[in-house]
């Protein structure tokens, strides 16, 4: 068996008396889509935050591609291969779609610290920026200001920016939240198309999408894993049914 992309070992995190992450271990294998589900407040986003480096765990280890990243800052983890979309669209709102692509492209090339040539008219950057947008089919909206985009398109753009760094692990925090059925379908198609090229850890409340997309699922309740397995195993699991699927929601 090949080495996991992401390996979480005995992760703990508390906010005062609330245990947000409780002795949690989890692996994400290369190329798989791994869904993280659980009721609201289960600690899914907090877990993503710790993997991403925006919040520090109290104890435990995080390894990416076999090397420990526990001490790295967010930008360093991104350089090590983590891409991320956020629960609330996190794009550059004051710029056009193309300018978002260009800024991502120059960051990818490590050229952001140059002072002379204008960035937005640079042919090489425009070409690269366009390629970034094409991965999610947004190249036709290139001249649009992001503030004028529909919600679903903003989510696509965010996914494109997350993919721009060629990550080996993609953290997607509710990519379909708030999107209409059409946009959700498009997003699911795009994520489906990524299967095998990048490992994905997916938080999503749309269970149809989760069961369609996920190779494996991990179910979290109150910061702890209560079950893990394939879609079939999870839907047959009594504990999960009780706690989540058939339960309160």
């Amino acid at each position, binding site marked *: 068996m090949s080495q996991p992309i992401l390996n979480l070992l005995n992760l703990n995190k508390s906010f005062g008396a609330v245990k947000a992450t409780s002795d949690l271990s989890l692996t994400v294998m290369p190329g798989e889509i791994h869904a993280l589900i659980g009721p609201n407040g289960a600690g899914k986003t907090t877990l993503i935050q710790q993997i991403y480096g925006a919040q520090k765990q109290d104890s435990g280890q995080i390894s990416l591609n076999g090397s420990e990243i526990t001490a790295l800052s967010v930008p360093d983890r991104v350089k090590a291969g983590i891409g991320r979309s*956020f629960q609330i669209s996190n794009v550059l709102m004051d710029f056009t779609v193309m300018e978002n692509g260009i800024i991502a492209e120059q960051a990818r090339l490590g050229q952001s610290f140059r002072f002379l040539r*204008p960035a937005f*008219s640079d042919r090489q950057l425009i070409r690269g920026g366009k390629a970034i947008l094409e991965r999610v089919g947004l190249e036709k909206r290139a001249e649009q200001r992001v503030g004028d985009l529909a919600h679903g398109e903003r989510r696509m753009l965010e996914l494109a920016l997350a993919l721009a760094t060629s990550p080996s692990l993609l953290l997607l925090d509710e990519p379909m939240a708030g999107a209409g059925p059409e946009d959700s379908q498009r997003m699911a198609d795009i994520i489906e198309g990524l299967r095998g090229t990048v490992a994905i850890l997916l938080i999503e409340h749309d269970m149809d999408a989760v069961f369609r997309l996920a190779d494996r699922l991990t179910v979290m309740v109150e910061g702890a894993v209560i079950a893990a397995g394939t879609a079939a195993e999870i839907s047959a699991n009594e504990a999960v049914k009780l706690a989540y699927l058939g339960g309160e929601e």
Partner: protein
Amino acid sequence: MSGLSQFLALAGDGIKANRLLWLLIGGFAVFPIFTHFADLPFWNDVAMRIMLLGMAAMGLNLVLGYGGMVSFGHAAFIGIGAYCVGIGEFYGLTNGWAHILLGMIVCGLMGLIIGYLALRTSGIYFIMITLAFAQMLFFLFVSLEQFGGDDGMSIDRAEFGLIDLYDPLRLYFLIWVALALVGLGLMFIVRSRFGVTLRAIKSNESRIEAMGLEPLRFKITGYVISAVICGLAGVLFANWQEYVSPDIMHWTRSGELMIIIILGGLGTLAGPLLGAIVFLLLEESLPMLLGAVAPAYAENWMILFGPLLIMVVLFGRGGLVGLIATRNQSTSNQKRGKAGQ
């Protein structure tokens, strides 16, 4: 050779894209001809003051307008630049080029230290820390009796090789060249990869982190560049004023710079210079105007200036430059007038 022609082509594009800025800078170049024939040499003095404050405001605008860092202590860098002349002369350093070099280096180092410490915070804390550093420096110079303390020290205009600054026109054009170079440099920086990254950090810092970039590096670099520009303005300011005292870095001047930027247009190249022109012209004319109507209140001209500033901020989001831009747009293209800005 091809490098130079490429540079000129880039500069040409930039100048075309920033007509207003270069119109203003060009205006300052020909202004002395006007004052000569109109026999109003006093106005050369006003123009120099405008150029100096405009230059400093352009420097501050890089962090305030483009980087979204509300620094409330940039007058300190003007002061450091000015004291580099005063203290330099005190120790026998009379060469003006050396003053400029010294002022820019010292301001760059101070910008690095203050930026490194202050940029760990944001929002109101950043504003307060930059103000605190500026106040610290203010009181440091107040307490330095050796250099005049509270009363300041008078300065001989420095030696700039063949350029005799006691010829008022030479000083005028030295300041003008500095202004044009600052305008040119900022024009390149703002449009460059670094510049758009700085603007993107203002827009959304966490997305820049998610692209694998460390925002602090960009913010500190921007802060240092703006400090160096204010230092240059300070060196020239001291030569213009022939005098330096802690007053030059009083916190109200930091506020003045911010007012100039907001009045002219935050995050625009021409805004700070246009703001400096309007601000200082109002400062000259409002007391006269008020004096004609109600002589007893002439010195309270701020009573008129305040509401004016509020009106510009309320009705012209984007300052005076924003007002001009929306006007141009709505006359040329009525449909886009509302969406644009």
